[in-house]
């Protein structure tokens, strides 16, 4: 091999504490190095041109650039060497900026260290092999998981672009959290009026197939060609026959079911259509509350149903689809706030969550849009809002800001005044966080025009006294304690990743953080991609966000999916594992550990052997470290390449 070494000064960034010429001189003596020089800015156009010129002039077959981190410019230089006519993988970088010049001032030590890093890079490069990507066809269909506003947006955008879309929603209706809201900030628009038409679009779009009351069972395959199994949970109502007339829900004798859609504000029936605008507008039976399932006799709904849609023997069903890309839009849940003893831990009925309050405010909610205290049904006059409940609280493992509570609390305070003009709202807050178009103005309006009293401080205790709730807290601006006698307390409960998010992440093989939120590919530059190719994120599942941000991310995720599936063929990264079949003894250990199910067993003349599914392999190398005889190797990070690096460093 003929190796060329280029030591970058990076202006004075490297040259300030590394003798670059000295390093180049030492590198010239390394095995197979035929050309070595230092260079002012390797990444700039003249620098790249110099590399290309040297390749041609000296007939180089491999290049080492010692400069910044490969996480920055490896792609740049790979392209450059490719332009020079060398395979892009016949290139190595030594990180002598972030790992040398920027972290030490001792020129002698830095120069020595830089020279050794170059030696390692050259030693590895000698074992590099030319790698070429392979291409494969894609399935032009997208799976959207979650039918909240983010998922709806992603589905509609992708469907409008001509892709087939499969939407899976866990609940019997799409709409998500937004469908539960009465109004939206800062325009105080009717939430269901703006969301409703979008939901209808989903139902009517010829390119969208909706599986409501369904969950993702299993995902296999890889970008462009995922095989997805969807579990359609039994609704005990044949939706092909159900017309959504609602007769069954009127006659159902079990009237004490927990009303999931209404957050338990009022009871509901065991067979139900979640709300009037539900999509699909179909009835389903909550088995836990149905008399027939629990007491063995009833069957009223089956008797009254005009189309004979009720089917008590219905079983879950598995549907299999092939998709090319996946958008996860699973949203969030409210944190279980009853961990807070100081707010009564759920003992006081007149302490409600913000989402329950939305249902009370909603004209289509169980109270018909009248705000009523759950304890006695009376109209409250003094309403206390407590912000940052289960947000920004490390003591319960929720140190993050939920981001939307400040705004919806302001909105709810305004709506309270609208509903009950002689009411007085109090808002306990930590900070008012209202960045966003028209947001800060909104939080000012609630104070200035609607007379909500904002108290900066935490609430230490809520306790009942004479039919009221005493809310005691600090007023950190006035420097004292305040006590408010409230008729109703609304907790602005923060959000957390939707229940089951980690399990879904495992199925999708994407990373998730300690709170269960899915990890984006890069916090700045890849906000909707994940580290698993072909899986994208939209909405609060990636991190809590408000409606416009969720919608924007839904569109962004759709754009990524559309971009991906606009091609007929995809290229695979060649830095993947490969098997030398004659060394493989078929012990299956690599198959066992592979996080991506990218290795399968094949039969080769009666012998079991491992085979890498090239399009699925992500190149982690776990199999390589597992295989006792080293029969499976990770291209570009083979045992020999790493050993060469180790040995370049060894003293003995």
């Amino acid at each position, binding site marked *: 091999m003929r190796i060329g070494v280029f030591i970058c000064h990076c202006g004075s960034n490297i040259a300030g504490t590394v003798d670059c010429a000295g390093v180049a001189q030492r590198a010239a003596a390394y095995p197979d190095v035929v050309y070595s020089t230092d260079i002012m800015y390797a990444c700039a156009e003249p620098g790249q041109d110099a590399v290309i010129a040297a390749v041609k002039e000296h007939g180089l077959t491999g290049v080492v650039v010692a400069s910044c981190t490969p996480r920055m410019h490896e792609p740049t230089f790979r392209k450059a060497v490719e332009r020079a006519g060398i395979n892009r993988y016949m290139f190595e970088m030594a990180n002598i900026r972030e790992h040398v010049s920027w972290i030490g001032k001792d020129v002698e030590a830095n120069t020595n260290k830089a020279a050794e890093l170059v030696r390692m890079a050259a030693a590895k490069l000698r074992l590099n092999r030319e790698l070429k990507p392979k291409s494969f066809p894609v399935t032009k269909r997208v799976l959207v998981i979650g039918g909240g506003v983010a998922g709806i947006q992603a589905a509609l955008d992708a469907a409008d672009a001509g892709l087939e879309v499969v939407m899976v929603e866990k609940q019997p209706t799409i709409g998500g959290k937004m469908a539960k809201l009465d109004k939206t900030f800062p325009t105080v628009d009717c939430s269901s009026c703006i969301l409703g038409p979008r939901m209808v679009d989903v139902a009517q779009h010829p390119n969208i197939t909706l599986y409501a009351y369904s969950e993702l069972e299993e995902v296999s395959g890889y970008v462009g060609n995922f095989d997805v199994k969807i579990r359609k949970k039994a609704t005990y109502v044949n939706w092909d026959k159900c017309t959504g007339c609602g007769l069954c829900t009127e006659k159902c004798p079990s009237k004490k079911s927990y009303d999931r859609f209404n957050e338990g504000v009022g009871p509901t029936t065991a067979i139900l259509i979640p709300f009037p605008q539900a999509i699909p507008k179909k009835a389903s039976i909550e088995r836990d509350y149905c008399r027939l399932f629990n007491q063995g006799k009833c069957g009223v709904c089956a008797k009254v149903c005009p189309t004979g849609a009720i089917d008590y023997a219905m079983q879950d069903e598995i549907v299999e689809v092939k998709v090319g890309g996946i958008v996860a839009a699973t949203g969030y849940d409210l944190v279980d706030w009853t961990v807070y*003893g*100081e707010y009564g831990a759920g003992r006081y009925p007149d302490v409600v969550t913000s989402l329950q309050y939305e249902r009370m405010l909603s004209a289509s909610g169980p109270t018909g849009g009248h705000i009523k205290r759950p304890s006695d049904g009376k109209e409250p006059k003094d309403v206390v809002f407590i912000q940052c409940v289960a947000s920004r609280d490390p003591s319960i493992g929720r140190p993050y800001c939920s981001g939307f509570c400040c705004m919806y609390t302001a909105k709810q305070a305004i709506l309270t005044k609208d509903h009950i003009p002689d009411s007085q709202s109090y808002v306990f807050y930590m900070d008012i966080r209202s960045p966003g178009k028209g947001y800060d103005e909104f939080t000012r309006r609630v104070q200035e025009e609607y007379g909500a009293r904002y108290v900066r401080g935490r609430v230490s*205790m809520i*306790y*009942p006294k*004479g039919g009221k709730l005493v809310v005691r807290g600090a007023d950190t601006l006035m420097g004292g304690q305040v006590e408010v006698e409230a008729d109703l307390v609304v907790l602005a409960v923060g959000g957390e990743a939707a229940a089951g998010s980690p399990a879904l992440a495992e199925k999708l093989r994407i990373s998730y953080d300690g709170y269960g939120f899915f990890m984006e590919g890069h916090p700045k530059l890849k906000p909707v991609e994940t580290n698993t190719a072909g899986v994208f994120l939209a909405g609060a599942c990636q991190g809590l966000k408000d409606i416009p941000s969720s919608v924007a991310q839904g569109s962004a995720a759709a754009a990524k999916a559309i971009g991906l599936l606009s091609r007929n063929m995809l290229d695979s990264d060649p830095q993947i594992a490969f098997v030398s079949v004659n060394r493989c003894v078929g012990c299956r250990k690599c198959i066992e550990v592979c996080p991506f199910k990218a290795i399968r067993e094949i039969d080769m003349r009666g012998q079991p052997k491992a085979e890498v599914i090239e399009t699925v392999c992500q190149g982690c190398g776990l199999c390589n470290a597992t295989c006792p005889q080293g029969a499976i190797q990770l291209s570009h990070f083979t045992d020999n390449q790493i050993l060469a690096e180790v040995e370049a460093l060894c003293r003995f």
Partner: protein
Amino acid sequence: MSRIDVGYFPGCSGLGTSMEYERSTRAVCRELGIGLREIPDWNCCGSTPAHSTDSALSAALASRVFAQGEKAGIGDMITPCPSCLKNLRVALEHMEDPLFSARVDALTERPLQMRHSIRSVLQILIEDVGPERIKARVRRSLKGLKVVPYYGCLMTRPEKIMRFDDPENPVALDRLLEALGAEVLAFPLKTDCCGGSFAIPARKVTPRLAGRILDMAGEVGADAVVVACPLCQMNLDLRQGQIRAGGVDRVLPVPYFTQLAAYAFGLPEQEAAFKKLVQDIQPAFACMSRRAADIEAEERKTAAAEAEKARLAAERAAKAAEKAAEKAGAKDAAPDGAGKKSAAAKKPREKADADGGEA
């Protein structure tokens, strides 16, 4: 009854302001088979004022207490005072850090050798003795006495140090008082501040905070506020004049739970030491007796009514069974089966009669 032997740290207030706590604690522990071995030549726990000036000095005082225990072979000890408890626990916790421990050891010149634990009297009564055994020891039930349990700020907090009960809504004292027969009322200010720590820096605050607790206790209809902390007791009991001056007019006795336990166990006044309280508890006991009589009368009435109801129900069932048997008998001639049925139907009736007779 199994005996429990444990080291005992009375704390300074036990010798003065909370003599009644100390005296009743010893009596109650004796009655429940808890052998108290007082730490020989004990000293201040380091709570006041050392802990606000020098944490190592404060811990050194605590460390000497443990060292004195060690001399007597005592590793586990209890104390009635939550403030002592907190300070001794904090010292133990901090001394887990070798650097801090070294500072303390330099002061005491006597590094601790044993593993130490310290708990409150309330904790040992609830955790080691348990409500059942306490209930079994009651000779003079507190039935009819309406009480609110007041834990104060320290008994369960800081959570990480005290590691006892729910920090916001503790129930240990509730359970104990229930075992003694008292009616424990829901009391939302269980762990509120009594103002004790403001007694010197901000004197006006104390009666206001203490007043709030008394006011709430009165509002929920309590005859007495039951406490477990000498400082709380003093603030709530001694300051009722100041509190009245502040506009809260509630006169309530503030006994220690150990005093009530001593009373319920039938121990003499010199051990219950109610005379040491500023607010007389006797009116509360008078209330209790009246109410107990009412309750018992009510209970008799309901028992009788229920027995009557049961009797009627059984009668109805028997009649129905007889009817069914007749029908069955008419339908097919199977006298065996029918006979069995009616015999079975008769049984509850006999039983109901017997119950009714007893009532």
